[in-house]
C-alpha cells in the first residue's frame, strides 16, 4: 500500500472536494455528550477528545430503520415499489480500525445465504476513511480479537496522527485511491514513519482461539445465569455494537398504501425468541446472555470464519448496569 501524508489543515479542503464530487460525509459529532455519526459539511464539526463513539458507523450500511419496499392497492391488485431505498454515495470519516473491521462481519452476514441488496449496495457506495487510535481505555480489547489500534483491515484510507499538524495517510484500496486522487496536491509522499509509536497500546487480554474452543463445552454451565443476574435485558449492547445485525420487519400502513421497514432488534429482549405457539426457548436472561457470547465467539467464527466482535468496547461503556464484556470473557476463561 502507498503511504502518503496530509496536513491536518488540509482536511477541510479534502472534505470540500469529496462533497463537490457528489459524496456526503458522515463523521462523529457530539450531540449532547453522545458521539454519533452524522452528516457534516465541514471538518470543524467533527468531534474530538473521545476514545470511542457512542453509536457506531453501522448505521451507514444498516440504518436503525430503513424502507425495504412500498406497496399500495390499485384496483383489485397491489403495486410494489422497491426503488426508493437507494444507497447514497458516502464517505464515512473517523471510524476506528475496529469499526472498519466490523463492516466485514456485517457484510459476511448479509452475503451468507442470500445477498442482501440494501446492505450490499450501501457497502459498495461507501468509502471508509479510518483514523487510528492514539488512546484506548480499559474497555478496549481489539488486539484480543485480531485487530489493533492502527490496523488497516477494512479501511479504504487510514489516517494516523503523527504530530499536531500532520496525518500519515495509508491508501489501502482502490476506493481509498479514488479519494486521494480528488485532491492529489494535498498529499505528499511519506518518509519513514514508525506508525506504531503514534498508536495506542492495547494489551492482549485473552486468546480468541482458546475461547472458541472452550465455549461449546460450556453450554450448560451455571456461569451464564450468574453473569447475567444484573443484566436488564435492554437492547443497548446490540444497538451500539458495530457488528450486531439482528433485525425486525415491520409493516406500517396508511389506508390503501403501506411501507415495509427493517429495523434493529436485539437478542437481549425477553420476547426475541418467543414463538407463535407461546414457547420461548430463551425465557431467562442467562440463556440470552449465553446466546450473545456464543454467537459472537463460537457460532460466527465457525460459520463466517471470523469473530462477531471487534473489541471496540461500546457495549461495556453504554451498558446501564456495567456488563463489562471483557471482564465476563476473562471470567469465562478462568472458570472450569
Amino acid at each position, binding site marked *: 500500500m502507498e503511504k502518503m501524508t496530509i496536513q491536518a489543515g488540509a482536511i477541510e479542503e479534502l472534505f470540500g472536494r469529496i462533497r463537490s464530487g457528489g459524496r456526503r460525509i458522515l463523521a462523529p459529532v457530539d450531540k449532547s455528550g453522545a458521539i454519533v455519526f452524522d452528516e457534516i459539511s465541514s471538518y470543524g464539526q467533527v468531534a474530538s477528545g473521545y476514545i470511542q463513539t457512542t453509536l457506531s458507523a453501522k448505521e451507514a450500511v444498516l440504518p436503525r430503520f430503513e424502507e425495504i419496499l412500498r406497496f399500495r392497492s390499485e384496483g383489485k391488485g397491489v403495486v410494489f415499489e422497491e426503488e426508493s431505498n437507494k444507497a447514497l454515495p458516502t464517505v464515512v470519516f473517523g471510524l476506528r480500525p475496529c469499526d472498519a473491521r466490523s463492516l466485514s462481519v456485517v457484510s459476511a452476514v448479509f452475503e451468507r445465504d442470500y445477498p442482501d441488496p440494501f446492505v450490499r449496495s450501501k457497502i459498495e457506495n461507501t468509502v471508509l476513511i479510518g483514523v487510528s487510535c492514539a488512546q484506548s481505555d480499559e474497555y478496549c480489547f481489539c488486539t484480543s480479537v485480531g485487530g489493533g489500534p492502527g490496523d488497516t483491515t477494512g479501511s479504504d484510507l487510514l489516517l494516523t496522527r503523527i504530530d499536531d499538524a500532520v496525518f500519515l495517510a495509508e491508501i489501502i484500496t482502490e476506493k481509498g485511491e479514488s479519494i486521494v486522487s480528488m485532491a492529489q496536491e494535498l498529499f505528499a509522499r511519506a518518509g519513514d514513519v514508525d506508525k506504531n509509536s503514534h498508536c495506542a497500546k492495547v494489551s492482549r487480554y485473552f486468546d480468541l482461539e482458546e475461547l472458541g474452543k472452550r465455549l461449546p463445552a460450556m453450554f450448560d454451565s451455571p456461569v451464564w445465569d450468574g453473569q447475567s443476574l*444484573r443484566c436488564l435485558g435492554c437492547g443497548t449492547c446490540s444497538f*451500539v455494537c458495530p457488528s450486531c445485525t439482528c433485525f425486525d420487519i415491520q409493516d406500517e400502513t396508511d389506508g390503501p398504501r403501506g411501507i415495509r421497514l427493517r429495523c434493529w432488534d436485539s437478542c437481549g429482549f425477553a420476547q426475541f425468541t418467543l414463538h407463535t405457539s407461546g414457547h420461548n426457548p430463551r425465557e*431467562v436472561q442467562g440463556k440470552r446472555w449465553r446466546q450473545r457470547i456464543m454467537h459472537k465467539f463460537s457460532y460466527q467464527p465457525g460459520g463466517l470464519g471470523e469473530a462477531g466482535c471487534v473489541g471496540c468496547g461500546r457495549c461495556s461503556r453504554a451498558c446501564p448496569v456495567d456488563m463489562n464484556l471483557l471482564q465476563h470473557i476473562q471470567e469465562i476463561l478462568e472458570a472450569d
Partner: protein
Amino acid sequence: MQDNMRRKAKELLSGGAVRVVIGYGEGSGGGVRALFVRKPEDADRLIYDERCVQNLAVYLTRREVKALGKPAIVARVPVMRTIRQLMIEKQAAEGDLAVIGVSSDGSLLDFPDLKSMAEYVSSIPFELSSDERAAVGKLEKMTAGERWDWWRGQFSRCIKCYACRQSCPLCYCERCTVECNQPQWISVPSHGLGNLEWHVMRAMHLAGRCVNCGDCSRACPVNIPLNLLTQKIIKDISEEFGDTEEYALNTFKPDDKEDFIR
C-alpha cells in the same frame, strides 16, 4: 457505615433470613455495579458511597432474581419509595423482602417490617429539587413550537433500545404494550412517530407512580433527558391534585379542577 452494612448483610444471610443481598459492588471505569451476595463471606464486597445511585428495586420484579429466594436490598430513599409503590401495586408484600435502608444523609436504617419502611419514606416530602424545577420551567417557558423542535431533536437520537424501560423498577410488565403486535399499537422502528409514541406512553404509564430516581436518564445511551417528562408530570400532579397516599391516576376527587373542559 459500610462496615455496618456488611455486618447486617452477613447477619441476614447466615441467619437464613434472606437468600441474597442486593447491593452495590466495585465496577468498571471507577464506577459501581449491582451486586448479588449469596454467601455471608462475600458480604465484604458490598460498598456504599456517593457512586451508588442505581435503583436496585428494578431487580425485585425480575424473575431470575426472584428465583434466588427472599432478598434483602440496599435501599436509598428513592429505592424505598419504589418498594412502597410496588407494595401499593401488589407486586411486593410484607415478608417478601428485607430492607437495608440508607437515609438521605447516609446512615443505615433498620426496619422491623415493610410497613414501617413505608411510613418512614412517606414522611419525607416528595418534591422536585429546585434544579429540577428550573429545568422543567425552562421548557415550560418556551413556545409550543420551540418545545416541539427541542423534543424532536432529543428524540432523533433515540434508538428504541428500551434501556429506559428496563432500568425503571416500575416498568415491570412481563409483556410491555410495545411488544403486543395484534395490533402493533406503538410503532417499533425508531422513526419520529415511533419515538414520540413510545416516550409519551412511557411517561403516561408512569404518571403518579414515578419516584424520580433518575435511572431512565442515566440508562439512556444517547443522553436524552428522559426524566424531564416524568418530572413534569410529578410537578403537575402535585400542583393539580396535592399529595396523595394512593397513586394519583388510580384515584380521583369529585371536585378535581381544570380549566379546559367545555
